[in-house]
């Protein structure tokens, strides 16, 4: 036996155990599937961002000088479809969630690994169909596909897009189903529900929505596709069909869908705030149950998207009141996050910057949602830039910040590499500033009355549009920097320890990156989660 030269062998990880393409494309390992999702999600984000860039360049001037209206319609439609269906809905759950759920609950994999892989393929196939339609000129229906325009009058490959979204919907459904069964039945011994990390609670709630709501939009889009292709007239007003019925069925999913987009980011925030305050989450059970409450309440408010659609005023009142109620569990979370930080040992690491940014921006987004929940105000604000600003604060200021925070938090665990912290902090600040410059002026524009989905506007709106477009370029730069240092870290980054942040949770007890089976032996949990000792709280970093 060789004793003179001791060769430093690389430890066995889920990454180096198989270097073949087949090992990736036919993997059943949830960690690899998470990475496959992450790659495709990033590609779609870039494409959706490209559409956004073109939109903002056009809107820098009041005249329609970059593109004509038909093309502009295709730009915001493409932006919406890609960002909603192919970026935001899968983002955190399919990438970070896939990677972390088994680790956090002490399992070897998700309940149905083959189904998990199928979900990824459905996502790729559906996304490719939509992308094909876009490459062949795009569609101009808006991401909301309102009838009868989308079924009877829109140009472009509407049916192909609808089928692509339909197939992608099944990816979402199967992922949600997989996650719920996993969380119910594959927790390690001793991992009771109230010992679960808050990220798991948020993903469970997200999965609940995915399973219950997505099928409705699936059948609705199927009907719209049939109507467009076969002219069977299910929503056609000339036959007595009801276009508002389409809106009811569409938004029955699409409102809960926004909670699919935000709940995982809230879960990430809970983990980050707790870790970097070195303190257990304040009001753990309130945060946990508020995720479920948001999921449930989210199902009964969709009519606030139909206030001016000719929906009855009575129904509008019902939906308005309920929409106010759904803000309550979100507010509970915000109070609890802030209380967690209070008297905690706060470290402003990159994930924490995103976490704190999330709290502030989500609060603004959420509060402006209340303006829109009020029917009287919504009549004036609907279809203006106020709405656009509102949902971008939630989806970009909220969901994407959560996604970035999660990526930065768990990157060492996923890749076994450390990224450059200084560049990371810098880009977090750039993103925060760029984001606010892009979208805050849009609140003012909406208040002043600038309508959305228009590529020309009155000259008095130009100042704010220029600010917004300038902000967008800064935001774009902000997103480009992490892409660079993350890739750089894969090749040149320092090796990450098992627990670089001093966090609690099962995923931090194992090596970075994990072995394929996650745990050498099944862990047994004997105490509550988030147990930070006083020594840990005092020791920074």
């Amino acid at each position, binding site marked *: 036996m060789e004793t003179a030269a001791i060769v430093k062998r690389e430890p066995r990880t889920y990454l180096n155990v198989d270097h073949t393409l087949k090992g990736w494309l036919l993997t059943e390992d949830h960690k690899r599937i998470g990475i496959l999702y992450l790659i495709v999600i990033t590609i779609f984000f870039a494409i959706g961002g490209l559409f956004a860039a073109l939109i903002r360049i056009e809107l820098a001037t009041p005249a329609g000088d970059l593109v004509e209206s038909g093309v502009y319609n295709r730009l915001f439609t493409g932006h919406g479809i890609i960002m909603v269906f192919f970026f935001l809905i899968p983002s955190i759950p399919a990438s970070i969630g896939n990677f972390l759920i088994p680790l956090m609950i002490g399992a070897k994999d998700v309940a149905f690994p083959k189904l998990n892989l199928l979900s990824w393929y459905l996502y790729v196939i559906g996304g490719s169909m939509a992308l094909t339609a876009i490459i062949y000129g795009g569609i101009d229906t808006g991401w909301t596909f309102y009838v009868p325009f989308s079924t009877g009058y829109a140009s472009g490959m509407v049916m192909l897009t609808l089928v692509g979204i339909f197939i992608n919907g099944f990816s979402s459904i199967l992922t949600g189903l997989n996650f719920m069964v996993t969380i*119910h039945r594959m927790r390690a011994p001793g991992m009771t529900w109230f010992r679960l990390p808050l990220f798991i609670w948020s993903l469970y709630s997200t999965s609940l929505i995915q399973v219950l709501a997505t*099928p409705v939009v699936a059948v609705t889009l199927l009907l719209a596709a049939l109507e467009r292709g076969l002219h*069977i007239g299910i929503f056609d007003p000339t036959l007595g069909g009801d276009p508002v019925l389409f809106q009811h069925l569409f938004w029955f999913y699409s409102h809960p869908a926004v909670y699919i987009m935000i709940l995982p980011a809230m879960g990430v925030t809970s983990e980050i705030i707790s870790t970097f305050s070195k303190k257990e989450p304040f009001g753990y059970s309130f945060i946990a149950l508020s995720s479920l409450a948001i999921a449930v309440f989210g199902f009964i408010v969709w009519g606030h998207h139909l206030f001016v659609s000719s929906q009855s005023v009575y129904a509008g009142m019902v939906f308005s009141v309920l929409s106010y109620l759904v803000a309550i569990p979100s507010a509970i979370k915000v109070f609890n996050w802030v209380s967690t930080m209070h008297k905690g040992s706060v470290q402003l690491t990159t994930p924490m910057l995103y976490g704190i940014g999330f709290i502030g921006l989500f609060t603004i987004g959420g509060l402006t949602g209340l303006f829109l929940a009020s029917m009287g105000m919504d009549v004036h604000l609907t279809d203006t830039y106020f709405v656009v600003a509102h949902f971008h604060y939630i989806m970009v200021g909220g969901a994407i910040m959560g996604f970035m925070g999660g990526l930065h938090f768990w990157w060492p665990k996923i890749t076994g590499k450390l990224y450059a912290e200084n560049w990371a902090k810098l880009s977090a600040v750039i993103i925060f500033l760029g984001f606010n410059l892009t979208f805050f002026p849009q609140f003012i524009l909406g208040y002043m009355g600038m309508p959305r989905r228009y590529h020309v506007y009155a000259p008095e709106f130009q100042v704010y549009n220029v600010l917004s477009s300038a902000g967008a370029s800064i935001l774009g730069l902000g997103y480009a920097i992490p892409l660079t240092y993350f890739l750089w870290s894969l090749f040149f980054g320092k090796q990450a320890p098992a627990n670089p942040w001093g966090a609690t949770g099962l995923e931090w007890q194992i090596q970075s990156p994990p072995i394929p089976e996650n745990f050498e032996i099944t862990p047994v949990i004997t105490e509550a989660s988030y147990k930070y000792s006083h020594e840990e709280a005092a020791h920074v970093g």
Partner: protein
Amino acid sequence: MASHSVTLRHHFETSEQQKDASTIGMWMFLVTEIMFFGGLFMAYIAYRGAYPDAFAAGSQKLNIVYGTINTAVLICSSLTMAMAVHSAALGKKNLIILFLILTLMLGGVFLGIKAVEYHDKYVGHEIPGANFHPELDNKNVSVNNVSLYFALYFGMTGLHALHMIVGVGLLLFLIFKTAKGAYTAHWHTPIELFGLYWHFVDIVWIFLFPLLYLIDLHPGK
């Protein structure tokens, strides 16, 4: 029984955990199917409420005998499927195959009658679209509204029939696997899960039948 049998997948600790996970997974899938059909039922509620006479007129064109027979056929097939699962739990391979084949045949009968009905609709110009001009007893209803009824008729029974066809395909697969000895009294989860699917498809029909076929059997009141 041994927890390291060949049917236990590596990420599960015990066979019980695996079976339980598969069962609730199947139930969650059926819940998605409830919501999937649910969208169509919502459209049905909306349009039948708005156009009751047109729906009655459209329903008149359906053959109640075929519909009732088909309902009975599916109920019988649910019994044979339940018996197939029962036989699987007892490990009786030949009985499993018998009941699966019976289920398959009954499913075939259902689809056959459905095909006849669809053909009749085609001949009677009752398929919505360019050639839609059904012969209605009630001349006071709008043909356009009646086409909404038929759009839902074809949408709902068509989606149901699609599920039946998938079911028939899966039955063939299960019969084949059973014959090869894949299932034991200890492990026959695919048969149980398929049973859940088949019963669900039966339940959808239990609702479709009265809603589509039995709207108003006494016109001109």
